[in-house]
């Protein structure tokens, strides 16, 4: 039994090694470009790529093609980017396969809803959304630690199954602790974020807030990853026993991974509640966990650009496929494709999205296990003397 488990662990490690390793660099089409960019950033000491991406992202609402439908989708994508950044810490860095991430999303959304919605049966406190940020981060990380504690000794499949259960437990609690959550009816009229008379309501404002929040989170997560904490996480992913033998308190860092992931997931929930002004348990199903995990895996485990790309593909694309413009564009293929109305392809593809995602997951696992954007190693700057 033990040997079986160890054999499986070893194979998994070998696989992960390959996933993150040699194949990644050699097969990466943009590897050379990325290296050149990195060299330029090194020379100018400016994060050129990040600034460019930020400017382009912030300018999107001014582009003529971007109307309110697009913005609504981009906000949704933004929420999933936030969730992906959180889960990435747990799964991508620390290697803890968490299938119950929706629990933290729900925690954040309900914490704010309970403390602010006029429909809240208990604890209603008119909490301002902006002030709720630290509250939600704190509650999220505490819940992360609490759910992390019982799964500390578990690895791999066992961990996945138990966390899956946690996700469901939280949803069932939301349904049944009516005195706090208002049960299946949910909580409504949740106040929008308001600051000195400015109410966050317009779609473009929401979008900007999410872009900035994502950048701040990505920066914080990047710093964490490049620190001793990030190295401890990755060492735990690679070989937990050896990490402990090298002086890493594995309990502490696993709990920190759960706490950080959960705090960010809860922030995603806070945005969700403030944006939709309505929460009920049916928004917090296993499907959310699966979506976020797929985003992380398809984008590239441990990769921040990967999370953004994954969210665009998995959350954004199915919506865009249903646009009338897409239908019109696709109908151009009608003359060359017999026996089919090509204008329907977009909608058909969107309604079959889960089959497509499943196929994508299989394809990524088989062909490019490191994900579309393989995670780049954080740069450790060497001292001059022994320099390269």
């Amino acid at each position, binding site marked *: 039994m033990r040997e079986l488990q160890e054999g499986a662990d070893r194979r998994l490690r070998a696989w992960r090694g390959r996933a993150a*390793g040699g194949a990644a660099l050699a097969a990466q089409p943009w590897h050379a470009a990325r290296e050149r960019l990195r060299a330029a950033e090194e020379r100018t000491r400016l994060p050129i790529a990040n600034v460019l991406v930020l400017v382009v992202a912030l300018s999107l609402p001014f582009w003529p093609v971007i109307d309110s439908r697009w913005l609504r989708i981009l906000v949704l994508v933004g929420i999933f980017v936030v969730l992906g950044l959180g889960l990435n810490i747990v799964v991508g860095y620390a290697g803890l396969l968490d299938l119950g991430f929706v629990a933290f999303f729900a925690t954040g959304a309900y914490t704010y809803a309970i403390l602010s919605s006029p429909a809240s049966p208990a604890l209603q406190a008119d909490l301002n959304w902006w002030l709720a940020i630290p509250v939600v981060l704190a509650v999220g990380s505490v819940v992360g630690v609490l759910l992390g504690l019982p799964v500390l000794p578990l690895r791999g499949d066992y961990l996945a199954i138990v966390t899956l259960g946690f996700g469901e437990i939280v949803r069932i609690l939301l349904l049944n602790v009516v005195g706090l959550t208002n049960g299946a009816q949910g909580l409504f009229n949740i106040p929008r974020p308001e600051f000195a008379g400015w109410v966050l309501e317009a779609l473009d404002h929401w979008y900007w807030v999410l872009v900035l929040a994502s950048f701040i989170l990505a920066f914080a997560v990047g710093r964490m990853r490049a620190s001793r904490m990030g190295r401890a996480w990755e060492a735990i*992913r690679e070989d937990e026993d*050896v990490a402990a*033998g*090298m002086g890493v308190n594995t309990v502490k860092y696993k709990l920190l991974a759960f706490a950080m992931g959960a705090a960010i997931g809860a922030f995603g929930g806070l945005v969700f509640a403030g944006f939709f002004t309505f929460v009920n348990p049916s928004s917090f199903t296993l499907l959310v966990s699966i979506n976020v995990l797929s985003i992380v895996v398809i984008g590239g485990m441990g990769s921040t650009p990967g999370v953004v790309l994954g969210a665009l593909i998995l959350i954004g694309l199915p919506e865009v496929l249903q646009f009338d413009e897409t239908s019109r564009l696709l109908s151009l293929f009608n003359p060359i494709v017999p026996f089919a109305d090509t204008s329907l392809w977009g909608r058909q593809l969107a309604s079959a999205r889960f089959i497509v995602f499943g196929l994508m997951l299989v394809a990524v696992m088989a062909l490019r296990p490191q994900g579309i954007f393989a995670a780049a190693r954080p740069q*450790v700057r060497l001292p001059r003397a022994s320099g390269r």
Partner: protein
Amino acid sequence: MATSPAEPTLRDEAATAMTRLRTRSLTMRFEGLVALDAVDLEVRPGAIHGLIGPNGAGKTTLFNVVTGYHRPTSGTIELDGRRIDGLLRHEIAEAGVSRTFQNIRLFGAMNVIENVLVGRHSKIAVAGVELAGRMRPHSDHRALAAVRALPSAPRAMLHGLLEVAGAIAQPPRVRQTERAAIEHCAELLQFVGLVGREHELANNLSYGDQRRLELARALATDPALLLLDEPTAGMNPAESASVVRLVRRIRDELGVTVLLIEHAMSVVMGVCERITVLDYGRKIAEGTPAEIQGNAAVIEAYLGTSAAQGGGRAAPRA
């Protein structure tokens, strides 16, 4: 830790000078199988001490028990006179025991330098170190006393918060200790002969280089005692000789005491000052290489009655 600084006495220092590692009737049982049977072992500071014995004798198990991977069934383990059995693995590492593995175990998807930096983990500060009381355990600052008085759950949370704050905000102390750690690790890589390979993935190194990297990583914890589990296994004579030279330099230049498991008799006899022989979990001999070579029990364990006892001894056990 609540030890007062006035504690160490002359007696303690005398004991320290005598033994680096001491096990007393160390026993490890796995469901019916006695892997270690009342082993008394004494390793002197500054020694290169050999640990030999047929396959399955319990050598690796002894390492696993000393480093906290297994909890001993009975017996005690002391490092420089201080009990370390019962400590957690990372505490044993911090107390000064480090090791390599018989089957190489690197953090394969991490860079060479990052592998070594993980070994340097506990030498890097977190935010508010003074507050957390990690770096100045003897300071009698009021805030520190307040933190110490906290129950363990909130204190752990505070430590976690300081860890995160340190990572994100990178205050000067964190930056400075991180830079010092990188410098130290770069030097260690130079020491083991991996200069210029810092940014390669550990998985992409050759077998011999992976063994060297494991040595550098183990040294990064600043060990007082280094346990090497068959560091020359699977190497050709030239590679093996260079690793042996490295082991000598680890002792001579870094002053690290080495306990070495090794199969090649030429290596053991050449490099070790003292040798302990295990067989079926029991210590059957101990002494200088010359004494061990002439010891009847050792010769018998290696060549003798094993075939008569049902064979299979010679086959490597997984």
